[in-house]
């Protein structure tokens, strides 16, 4: 099976606190902080979008490896907020990252698991021998409607992986589970998504994440205690914490990958930015269970083992996830709506 050759993430520096959003909508911030486990979220700057975020994440992944860009034969970008409706993000990234023009490329969509769908597709091309290395990116600048519960969590960030034959972590197996579940959707041309309220929990998130994790452990003959780390899709802090407990994982196994409480739900990057934070500190032999969830709905599970090459891997050539999380620029709700284009300007 293929392995992770390199990885990199990018988190915009602007942040807004749950208290600040609650203040505007007259809500009790303790309900959000205590109930959903969201304290703050990242906000893209007025000049940032999925292309710029993907480019920064991709550059960080390229910087950390000595593998030549010329060997990258595919680039797939998963997002639900691609800058263009028609004009692939992947095509702009080929030039922005200086990748060869002899390259397979496409944009993917599957709510919050489009990034992991991209990883699986690169794995297929690597394992079949069609390409030597490939890049998979998950990035989003998601929006929640003003006043909607999603406004506390919908945030921005991106993570890029270079997948190839010889890397720093083996992907032992991947498994996907898909059903037709209308928990969350956005119709073409609509600015904000709609969701099924409480319906997003049991039949959507928990059913798919738990099935993905359980089937993976059945197939691999593993138990929760066999893993050093576990990371799940995190629409808020509460859901993945509960899913981990239901599966039998302990806090020590999940805390390093649980980032939504501080940066919000980065959608297509949500689980993989947690995986990126885990890889920032992982050591040879560490085993990781990673499960992404996308509304609609489906899950992508990965069983990963870090190998000895991580010792000589140049992690410090690019900023780690925690390093980026710890450099916030706090903004108020007024600047937040300005940056997110929620103010109607003259001529609009």
């Amino acid at each position, binding site marked *: 099976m293929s392995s992770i050759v390199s990885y990199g993430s990018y988190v915009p520096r602007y942040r807004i606190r749950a208290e600040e959003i609650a203040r505007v909508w007259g809500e009790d911030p303790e309900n959000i902080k205590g109930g959903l486990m969201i304290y703050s979220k990242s906000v893209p700057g007025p000049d940032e979008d999925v292309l710029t975020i993907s480019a920064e994440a991709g550059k960080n992944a390229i910087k950390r490896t000595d593998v030549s860009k010329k060997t990258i034969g595919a680039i797939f970008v998963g997002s639900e907020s691609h800058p263009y409706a028609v004009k692939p993000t992947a095509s702009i990234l080929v030039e*922005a990252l200086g990748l060869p023009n002899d390259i397979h490329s496409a944009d993917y969509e599957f709510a919050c698991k489009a990034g992991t769908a991209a990883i699986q597709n690169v794995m297929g091309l690597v394992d079949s021998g069609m390409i030597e290395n490939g890049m998979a990116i998950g990035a989003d600048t998601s929006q929640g409607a003003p006043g909607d519960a999603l406004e506390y969590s919908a945030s921005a960030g991106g993570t890029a992986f270079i997948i190839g034959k010889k890397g720093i972590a083996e992907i032992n197996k991947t498994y996907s589970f898909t059903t037709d579940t209308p928990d969350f959707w956005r119709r073409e041309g609509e600015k904000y998504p709609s969701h099924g309220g409480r319906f997003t929990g049991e039949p959507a998130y928990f059913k798919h994440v738990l099935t993905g994790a359980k089937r993976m452990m059945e197939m691999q003959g593993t138990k929760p205690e066999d893993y050093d780390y576990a990371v799940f899709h995190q629409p808020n802090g509460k859901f993945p914490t509960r899913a981990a407990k239901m599966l039998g994982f302990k806090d020590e196994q999940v805390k390093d990958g649980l980032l939504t409480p501080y940066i919000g739900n980065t959608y297509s990057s949500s689980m993989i930015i947690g995986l990126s934070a885990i890889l920032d500190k992982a050591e040879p032999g560490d085993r990781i269970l990673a499960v992404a969830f996308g509304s609609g709905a489906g899950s992508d599970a990965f069983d990963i083992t870090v190998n000895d090459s991580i010792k000589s891997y140049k992690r410090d050539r690019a900023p780690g996830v925690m390093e980026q999380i710890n450099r916030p620029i706090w903004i108020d709700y007024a600047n937040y709506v300005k940056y997110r284009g929620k103010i109607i300007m003259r001529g609009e």
Partner: protein
Amino acid sequence: MSEVPRFWRESKHRYRLVGTRCENCGNLYFPPRDICPTCRRESINKMKEEELSGEGEVYSYTVVHDGLEQFKMQVPYIIAIIKTKEGPLITGQIVDCNPDDVKIGSQVKSTLRKVRTEGKSGIIQYGYKFILK
């Protein structure tokens, strides 16, 4: 008039800071030049593309309070001349900071950002800007 053709021709240097080096005298140029202004005829077919690291320091800067309509969302914003590690001076915006954070000599690195958009339906122009290190 659409700027699409011009922008497309310049995308490589706008996205990745690709300049040209004269193999005759060794000078590096950004934006890229087809001919070396020093060597002129001698530089024909000797201009080689080279990507700048994006690292440098603030050589000079100004804070714009009364910007074009396009940049209203970003006012006040900082326009600086950056002395790159490789030598060429580049004019660009410094983002993700307050004007007070910028000083002559501040270390910066390049980042790819949206530079402008052609209205609601036109092309999105991306290009380099700078952030404090």
